[in-house]
């Protein structure tokens, strides 16, 4: 009788260990839940580590989510400027057009600091620091950026921390290059 | 019974253990005293009071404690 119960318990524990490890959502912190964790611990994002995808326009490094003011001053007077308030809420989206590329920024409705959300090339006057621009071939892109891209329709997107760099192709030639901030 | 009273007085000289019959309920004996009593009783009477015998009924008065010791003595 004793052995029987012992056997059952052992087999159950083996099954248990199995289901334990592959079960669903991973406990965010590997360590312990605590008796008195002050709850809701969103750790402040560590110092914004720079994404490896940024646009370098003759010396000015433009990172996504960066503060717009210094970049705008560095780039000087835009050729065109466009502003579109979001429907009812007081936020503001702005577009500054420069020679060969457009710079998109957004201003939050509550904290008023303007940050960069995307940079788009429209002509081959400018190129990425890896040398890709309008008209480049698919092979060039893959040779420069590797193949862990996500493909969606004609758009190939490479992602790194908070920025994604995406190329849109028409008959395997780049027609648009854009750096975009990934909004969570 | 005298040795038992000696042990108890050693812990709390100010208490008159003969008459007092709610040592636990009035929180006079706390868990440390109980442990020391058990160690002493084991030492003096050679009897080991098991953990589940540590109940208010057995420890509320010196007489109840003595009865417990007697019971354990003739059990083993």
């Amino acid at each position, binding site marked *: 009788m004793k052995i029987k119960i012992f056997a059952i318990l052992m087999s159950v524990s083996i099954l248990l260990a199995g289901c334990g490890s592959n079960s669903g959502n991973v406990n965010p912190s590997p360590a312990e839940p605590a008796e008195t964790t002050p709850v809701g611990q969103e750790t402040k994002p560590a110092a914004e580590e720079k994404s490896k995808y940024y646009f370098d326009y003759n010396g000015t490094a433009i990172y996504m989510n960066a503060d717009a003011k210094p970049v705008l001053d560095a780039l000087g007077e835009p050729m*065109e400027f*466009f502003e579109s*308030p979001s*429907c009812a*809420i*007081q936020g503001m989206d702005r577009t500054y057009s420069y020679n060969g590329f457009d710079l998109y920024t957004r201003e939050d409705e509550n904290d008023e600091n303007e940050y960069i959300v995307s940079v788009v090339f429209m002509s081959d006057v400018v190129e990425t620091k890896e040398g890709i621009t309008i008209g480049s071939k698919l092979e060039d892109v893959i040779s420069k950026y590797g193949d862990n891209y996500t493909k969606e*329709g004609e*758009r190939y997107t490479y992602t790194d921390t908070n920025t994604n760099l*995406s190329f*849109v192709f028409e008959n395997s030639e780049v027609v648009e290059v854009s750096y975009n901030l990934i909004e969570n | 019974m005298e040795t038992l009273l000696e042990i108890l007085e050693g812990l709390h000289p100010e208490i008159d253990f003969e008459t007092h019959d709610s040592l636990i309920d009035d929180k006079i004996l706390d868990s440390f005293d109980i442990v020391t009593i058990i160690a002493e009783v084991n030492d003096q009477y050679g009897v080991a009071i098991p953990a589940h015998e540590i109940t208010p009924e057995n420890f509320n008065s010196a007489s109840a404690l003595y009865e417990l010791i007697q019971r354990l003595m003739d059990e083993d």
Partner: protein
Amino acid sequence: MKKKKIISFVILILVVFTLAWLLQKLLMPKYMTKIVEGALISEYYEEKNKDHDVIFIGDCEVYENFSPITLWEKYGITSYIRGSAQQLIWHSYYILEDTLKYEKPDVVVFSVLSMMYDKPQKEAYNRMSIDGLPLSLTKIKMAKASMLPEEDLITYIFPLLRFHSRWNELSEEDFKYWFKKEQIAHNGYLMRVDVKPAGSFPKPRKLADYRFGDICYDYLDKIVKLCKDNGIKLVLLKAPSLYPHWYEEWDAQIVDYAQKNDLLYINMLDHLDEIGLDYSTDTYDAGLHLNLSGAEKSSAFLGKILQKEFNLADKRQDKYLQAIWQEKTDAYYKMKEDQYKELEEYGYLLKFNLKKAQEDNRQ
């Protein structure tokens, strides 16, 4: 004794419910001086004569670009705009379903721009489109279809559970409009007379995939079916706003869809000169939305087509309607004057430029 206990218990429940109702009305945002678009949806239910020839549904493309007053004055067509900020296509469907509980219009005009959004954008927009409706099964279905993950359905049934945290933001406006709200729109048209000439627009970006989301097509089919079942003529409309960019690929899909479902599709961007729009005087935010003069022109253009296509009768002789619409037209022109006066005095409209108003502390 038992009876007395039950009675007092019932009284308690009554007290709790009335208090809850009062607090809910107090704490819900009033949208009277700030973000007035929020009050658009609920205004319809104050309307005494809920019987219109044409009902508009859609986002700011309808409630900023068309004026029911002009449709009435020029063609005797009665219309109402059931628009709200960022109204997504599933919002439009359920609002139409709710409107049909009150009236059966001959024509429904749906602004197709919202086909470009296939997921809810912001919780605030959901609240503004949904909270205005009276509690009903439609409202619950609408909330379920549009909720963001962090939202709870019960907060749409009992909005007090959502807006309770406004207790420390209550302002004089909340008490003034606790029970009675002011009318801020003219049959759903939000008037703005200020002008900001349109400049250039950023070149439209290439999209990965131009096809509208499946959910949008599902709801478009639902709107078509709802109109068919009720014998209503559905018109697909692209309002003459220059931004966000209306891609040709999108236009092609709507044209194709309209043909397949035998619907009238009007892309007013193709008739700008016929409408006579001049984007240096007819828009208040550089081309995104039309101002009053622009709206009147586009209404005149649309009215002609609607009257011809669906031979809507000219009801300007109808005595009963005349009285009702006279009142609306007077209010319309009064607001027009007030806004012009305000424009002269401050150079901008206070209601729509809150931040500037606060800076110049005129509010």
